[in-house]
């Protein structure tokens, strides 16, 4: 399935190298002179589209051996791709959405100023190049000749920032902000047609027809049943001279039960199953009826502890819980080894990730010492909120309850509906709560709002002035080395303080029938279908 791309890469090698290296420099901006900006401007759109595939082939762990002989001509056009997705969407307006499932749709409808490949490096998208020589401003050169799906021209007038000329915009910052480009990859950087915004109004949230420049356009959304998108015939990207996208239609079937998603794939009712059940992966891997791949995800999962109320306002008691939980057993038993034990918010794909940092190993004796140090040698009890009807969370909680029992801590498992659980946790009406964060490509996105005093996702109400200072410093620095050092430090301090018990980093999974070709697995968990095609 990879053969087409390999051939394509050879053709475009020179352009690719230019594009990759330049975006590299721009991703973690160090030199103020930024010669890279000019270089990336030379990256043609074919190259920028192809680069994702090229790096995918390189990073691929697929068993399907690629041979370089085949050409892009073998691509089959047309057809409907049916995807089993795990939840109903909430909001199709990228500026108002907060859910991962929404983003799965956004990425088909909208393009952003910049994008990423499987290597998580920033690449040009709607912006051909950018200049960050001024740490408090960034100037984007926009791609020319792009039209929104509703026919509106895409140019500088679209962006609500300083317009320099028709295809150049400038974003001013109040202070240096290193994660800016990474932020613009996602919803914040998605471009919407001003005409559509005016015409649709609130309709953008439920039926954003024609609002994006992306490879697919909106057709319909049947709540709790399916979302249908169709090919954008005037899409601006090509791959090796071939007009993208290849598919005629995307149908997202909303199937909350993970077993049903897999069963639908088995019966052929869907072509791709997102988030399949971990317990069946071993069998799926052996089955030639499926193509399976995974990659370490940006996500971290664990237990949030309310550090402002009893009993977890006591650091020693938080650490006692951390020592008492056998996280390796959770990863192996509940998640069937699909992922790694987490030792902080910095996940494996991020540059500052430090695999040698292992502060908490399962240690009952140490947990008891910490309990005594916290003034509760005989243990205590607390309520643990979990999402109802989530088998994985239930199993995890049952295991944790049993493990904590060994040190005298009683856990009361309290299942709540997901939105209520999120609400209770965000409003700090909780003691302990199992939650996760899908992760971002810049370490800032995995740490700042979660652990800075008063941060938007700081549900535990954690506050450490040293951590605050480090987070601010890391955000303002454009030096990748310095940032890595800072985030390593932040990761260590936060894990040591334990406002979260970090449990594991999952993997991002690609699972489909062998008919589906051209899939590119990216660690951010978003599936992008512009280059995907279906063989007959």
């Amino acid at each position, binding site marked *: 399935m990879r053969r087409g791309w390999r051939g394509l890469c050879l053709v475009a090698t020179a352009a690719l190298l230019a594009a990759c290296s330049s975006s590299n420099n721009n991703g973690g901006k160090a030199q103020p002179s930024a010669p890279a900006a000019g270089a990336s401007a030379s990256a043609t759109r074919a190259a920028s589209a192809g680069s994702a595939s090229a790096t995918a082939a390189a990073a691929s762990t697929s068993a399907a051996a690629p041979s370089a002989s085949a050409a892009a001509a073998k691509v089959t056009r047309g057809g409907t791709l049916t995807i089993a997705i795990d939840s109903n969407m909430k909001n199709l307006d990228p500026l108002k959405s907060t859910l991962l499932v929404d983003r799965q749709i956004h990425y088909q409808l909208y393009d952003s100023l910049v994008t990423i490949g499987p290597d998580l490096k920033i690449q040009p998208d709607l912006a051909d190049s950018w200049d960050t020589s001024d740490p408090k401003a960034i100037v984007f050169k926009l791609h020319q000749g792009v039209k929104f799906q509703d026919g509106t021209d895409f140019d500088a007038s679209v962006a609500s920032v300083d317009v320099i000329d028709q295809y150049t915009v400038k974003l001013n910052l109040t202070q240096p902000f290193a994660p800016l480009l990474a932020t613009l990859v996602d919803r914040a950087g998605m471009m919407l047609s001003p005409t559509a915004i005016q015409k649709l109004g609130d309709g953008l949230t439920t039926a954003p027809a024609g609002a994006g420049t992306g490879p697919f356009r909106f057709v319909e959304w049947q709540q709790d049943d399916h979302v249908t998108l169709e090919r954008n015939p005037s899409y601006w990207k090509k791959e090796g001279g071939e007009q993208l996208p290849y598919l005629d239609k995307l149908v997202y079937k909303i199937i909350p039960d993970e077993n049903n998603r897999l069963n639908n794939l088995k019966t052929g009712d869907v072509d791709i199953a997102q988030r399949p059940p971990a317990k069946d992966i071993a069998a799926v891997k052996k089955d030639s009826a499926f193509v399976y791949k995974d990659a370490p995800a940006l996500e971290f999962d664990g237990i949030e502890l309310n550090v402002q109320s009893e009993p977890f306002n006591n650091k020693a008691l938080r650490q006692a819980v951390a020592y008492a939980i056998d996280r390796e057993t959770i990863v192996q*038993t509940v998640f069937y080894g699909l992922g790694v034990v987490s030792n902080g918010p910095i996940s494996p794909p991020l540059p500052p990730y430090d695999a040698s940092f292992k502060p908490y190993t399962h240690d009952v004796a140490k947990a008891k010492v910490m309990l005594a140090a916290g003034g509760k040698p005989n243990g205590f009890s607390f309520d643990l909120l979990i999402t*109802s009807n989530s088998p994985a969370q239930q*199993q995890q909680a049952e295991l944790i309850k049993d493990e904590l029992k060994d040190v005298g801590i009683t856990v009361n498992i309290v299942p709540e509906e997901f939105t209520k659980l999120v609400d209770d946790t965000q409003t700090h009406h909780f003691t302990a709560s199992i939650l996760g964060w899908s992760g971002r490509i810049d370490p800032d996105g995995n740490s700042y709002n979660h652990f800075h005093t008063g941060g938007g996702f700081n549900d535990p109400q954690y506050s450490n002035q040293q951590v605050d200072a480090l987070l601010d410093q890391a955000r303002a620095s454009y030096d990748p080395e310095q940032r890595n050092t800072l985030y390593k430090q932040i990761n260590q301090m936060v894990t040591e303080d334990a406002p979260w018990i970090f449990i594991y980093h999952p993997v991002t999974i690609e699972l489909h029938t062998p008919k589906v070709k051209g899939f590119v697995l990216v660690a951010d968990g978003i599936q992008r279908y512009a280059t995907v095609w279906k063989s007959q």
Partner: protein
Amino acid sequence: MVAGERLVPIPSALGESALAARRKHSLSRFIVNHRVLSAFIVIFVALVLVAVFADALATYNPTKTAPTIKMRSPSGAHWLGTDYLGRDMYSRVIKGAQVSMRVAVIAVSISLVVGVVMGLMAGYFGGLADLLCGRYVDAQLAFPGILLAIAIVNALGPGLYHAMIAVGILGVPLYFRLTRGQVLQAKEQEYVRAAEVIGASRWRIMFRHILPNIANPLVVAASLAGGNAILALAALSFLGIAAQPPTPDWGAMINIGKDYLHNNMWMAIGPGAAIFLTVFTYYMLGDALRDYLDPRLKTR
């Protein structure tokens, strides 16, 4: 029954001759004459004993995890295999009997007390009491039972005790209608008239005179309702809103077990068989009791 005999014995559901005949029978005669009933009484008592002595009968702690031996098939060490966390399924199923039997007792008690009191008042007082109770029951019956239970549990919050209350409320109409019908018949009978004449209060007449005389059909209904209650609770647990983890509840076990049919079907078979056996026993016992207590259905 006892109270009824002490008063003027007016045979209604239970004939006078049957009573007399029964006294003459020894235990062996009883068993020979009522084989089905005897058999299910034995099974039922065995189930109750399993529930009562569940902790002694369990070979392992039903909530103790052992991840290294997860999802094993039945073996000498684990008679029904192990579940996804390596817990012994046999011990969990046995312990689940305790949960289910407790539910049956509590939920049926709720239905019985509420339904019978409402039925007595509606039947005996008539008028406004009959109208209010009757309309309430009609309204409840117009609503699909399991949906009502789900709504009640969600309103009270998920949990085993809230589920018991919901299942108890579900059973109210059955007892109400049964009791009301029986009371309407009974209150025209002479022993009620006699009690009225000697000046017994209306509450005394209802609870000391009428109730003992209409107890037989209620006992039969209680047995059937016990089976219904276990099934309803299993359904609520299956939906994840009754018994909460790690409580070993049969419905909850099947809920998880159904996802593992390809991996280890024993996780669903054990609790499934337990529900079948228990509910079947309740129904058959109820059926046999009815045959025994209602002379009109006597065939031999």
